[in-house]
């Protein structure tokens, strides 16, 4: 298989397999969480579970005012990473072309200069978060193999994508193959690691809010 054929496979069958594993894996994971369920409480409720659950999904996205230095750093770098990642993913013209081919519709792209900034911010934030994970005693104690695996799997598409845009390191074809493969690796592994938090976070917040809301506590 020459590089051109490899690219053809990676962008065709490879991507289809990765997308199928991602969608079915995430669906299985989420369905499993839902089916595990919980016992319905027999106590008399004081407030609404649903309203409080939905409210908490939103409220936990807001920056809390009483954060310590660790919290401020984590929330700032974490927000910058997520924001940069999703803007780059959704508003780079090349990404929109791929998504248009899959979805059948597209949307306006952001200028390259803006995407450069969001990509760099996202990469810098990820590196800072990794450094903090090594340096901060609490995070260091909590961290396990999956934390570093998740970091690597998330970092690679950003790095190879940036190299591709800037033509750094390898020829265009090689970088395109590497970038696409890194995305596929992320898609295949995500459902089975803590990267599944991209969906489960909404259920976690809902449960938290619902448990408190049942008792009439606004969290």
């Amino acid at each position: 298989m020459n590089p051109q054929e490899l690219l053809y496979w990676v962008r065709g069958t490879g991507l289809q397999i990765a997308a199928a594993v991602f969608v079915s894996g995430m669906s299985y994971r989420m369905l499993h969480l839902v089916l595990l369920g919980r016992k319905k409480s027999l106590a008399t409720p004081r407030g609404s579970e649903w309203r409080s659950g939905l409210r908490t999904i939103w409220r936990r996205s807001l920056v809390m005012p009483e954060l310590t230095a660790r919290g401020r750093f984590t929330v700032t770098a974490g927000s910058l990473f997520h924001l940069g990642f999703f803007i780059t993913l959704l508003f780079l013209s090349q990404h929109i072309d791929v998504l248009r081919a899959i979805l059948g519709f597209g949307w306006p792209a952001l200028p390259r200069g803006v995407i450069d900034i969001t990509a760099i911010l996202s990469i810098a934030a990820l590196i800072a978060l990794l450094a903090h994970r090594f340096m901060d005693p609490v995070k260091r104690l909590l961290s396990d193999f999956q934390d570093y695996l998740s970091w690597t799997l998330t970092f690679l598409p950003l790095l190879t994508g940036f190299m591709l845009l800037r033509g750094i390191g390898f020829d265009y074809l090689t970088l395109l193959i590497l970038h696409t493969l890194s995305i596929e690796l992320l898609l295949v592994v995500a459902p089975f690691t803590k990267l599944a938090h991209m969906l489960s976070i909404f259920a976690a917040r809902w449960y938290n809010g619902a448990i408190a809301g049942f008792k009439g506590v606004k969290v």
Partner: protein
Amino acid sequence: MATSSLQRGINAFVEQIDGPVATFFTSCVHCGLCADACLFYTETQDPQYTPIHKLAPLRRVWQQEYTFWGKLMSRLGLGKPVTDAELAAWEPLVYDSCTLCGRCSLACPVGNDIAYMVRKMREGMVASGHAPEGLKNATRRAIETGSPMGVNLNTLLAHIKHAEKETGLSVPLDKQGADYLMVLSSAEIAEYSEIIPAVTRIFHQAGVSWTMASDGFEGTNSGIQIGSSDLAAELLGRIVQAAERLKVKYVISPECGHAYTALRWEGPNLIGRPYGFQVIHIIELLDQLRSEGRLRTEGVDVTRMTFHDPCQMVRRGGVIEQPRNLLNMVAPNFVEMPDAGIQNWCCGGGGGVSAIARAEPLRIKVFSRKKAQLDAIGADTIVTSCSNCRSMLQDGLEHNHMDINVVGLTELIAEHLAPAAK
């Protein structure tokens, strides 16, 4: 507790893992933000007290039993099974340094209710034989004598006699068909028995039809604190039985955090059916009487007064505004502590910690958080509505040589009842 073993503990862990627990573990990104919400971490800066870390053995059981990754690792012989030695090492983290206060559950950005999980983890700790001696003994006393502090019916009868003499009013016992069944906490009977004349006077003024029960007067539930649903159900069952025997409409939860959690929130689930009565916290009832104009006070306490929010009543219980409404009646110089309300810091002795002797030095150390809250406002009097908090506050203040008076809210209100009713 007698037939505990590692396998029983692991089985209990597996049984305790429900949708919320699995969702919380799936969502945790190990950001460490929960550490800064826990007074055991903030006051020691020791990372082992990070709330989510206290759940590490339960998390591993979840991984190995419920996730593809964990199952694969176990199949390949790469999984690390939870051992007795590990659970023994985790015992001080799950009990001595967690009051189930739930402050971490408010701080988690992904929404994990960590206190919910610690409560569940304790079920496995008990089943595996890794619960602290102090709590085991308290629970054993509660099952055998009816009270974790060893108080019995004779003690209560003596207090009732004294209260009747003091108030000139009768204290109803085993009165069939009364509207309310008053339950007390262990600490109230043992240390703060002035609660009995206080409620007697208040209920007399408000015209409340009430009683106490000779077979269900103790609300403190060590079963909840140690994490044994079976024992918790047995202790709670005594109150349920008494309430149903006397055909009361309401059971009044005492000023005791975990008694309220047991009676109000966990109770029907423990006994497997809804109650035939409702549960109301004493502070909720007093505020209701106030709003109906049935609770009248006279005079005020002009000292600089503040309120310590008991975690189980406020953050985990939803009785938040009621104590403040009552304090407004008698405390013109009331001042809130920083972080008051659902963000309040625990007294350090809830969730059974006060029953663990070896935890005392740590509990006293972390009281520095409460001290800082109090130093910020310069209060003369601290009011609370949990007898365990009250005891812990008094202890902490004494260790820190702080001259602050600690009073129970119900007694404070009783002290200011309109004279005609006194």
